[in-house]
């Protein structure tokens, strides 16, 4: 993975597989404190203590099609490479929250990349799940909330290609509006 938005796409899949109805993705760029934070919170089934302990082990997975699970370990590695770290908080039956933190200006901090394509991809793959994407920069906050989009499109499916393309372009222009350069 070479972009943080690709890690996000991967981690959100954990949330939707855990049966989440709402997944909230929060990104904040704290320029004064030189930190870059990603938080992915879901209301899925959560993990028991034993599973949570193993979640960061690359040779642990809940799937049966292969014997390893690299999503969380790779994000942790990306965070630690940039003077940050990863924390997983979970409560069985309640949900899971993944926090990844980086030093914003660190040379090895991966760029955010195409977050609009990531959000469109998670909606396309999980049309029954709601997503909130909140991005805070020093100069403003952008929010995409699929519940709000659903209210406006009525019975048109949210994973219709035209709706997905609209969501993508709204994110792109919204991030531009708060001064986010996705390649940095």
């Amino acid at each position, binding site marked *: 993975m070479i972009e943080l938005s690709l890690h996000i796409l991967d981690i959100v899949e954990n949330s939707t597989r855990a049966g989440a109805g709402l997944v909230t993705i929060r990104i904040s760029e704290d320029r004064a404190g030189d930190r870059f934070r990603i938080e992915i919170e879901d209301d899925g089934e959560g993990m028991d203590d034993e599973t949570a302990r193993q979640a960061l082990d690359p040779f642990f997975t809940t*799937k049966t099609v292969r014997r390893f699970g690299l999503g969380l370990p790779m994000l942790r590695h990306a965070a630690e490479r940039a003077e940050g770290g990863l924390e997983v908080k979970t409560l069985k039956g309640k949900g899971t929250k993944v926090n990844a933190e980086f030093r914003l200006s660190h040379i090895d901090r991966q760029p955010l990349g195409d977050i609009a*394509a990531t959000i*469109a*991809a998670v909606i*396309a793959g999980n049309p029954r799940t709601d997503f909130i994407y909140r991005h805070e920069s020093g100069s403003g906050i952008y929010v995409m909330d699929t519940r709000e989009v659903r209210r406006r499109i009525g019975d048109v499916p949210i994973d219709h290609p035209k*709706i997905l393309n609209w969501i993508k372009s*709204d994110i792109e222009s919204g991030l531009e509006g708060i001064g986010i350069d996705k390649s940095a």
Partner: protein
Amino acid sequence: MAKIKIEDLKKIKEKIKAETSLRAGHLRVRVTVHMGTCGIASGARGVLDSLMKEIGAAGVADVAVTTSGCAGICSREPLVTVEVLGEEPIKYEHMDPNKMRQVFKRHILEGEIQTPFVMARGSEQVK
């Protein structure tokens, strides 16, 4: 979200409703881009992105896009499954945005399976 954009969304909604009422909402093709860790790491998001752009540019209303998780064939990723209504699903391997555009234009729109990229015929294993 900027106000002018919300207006756009309303227009898109009306347009979709007009199109689907003409076609009775029937989908002709379902395309699944495999989006597990392995797929993502080898470029699946770019494949999905190019597919969505092609659908937008062609203005077709009967092609649905979805994603799935890892099916255990990580070395052949990115994988794409094309299911045309009433036909056997086709799994394409080692996809990239250019191959996806070719599959969209030749297979999805014109019905000609792009055999050089085909990994297998067969049904889809979901998450």
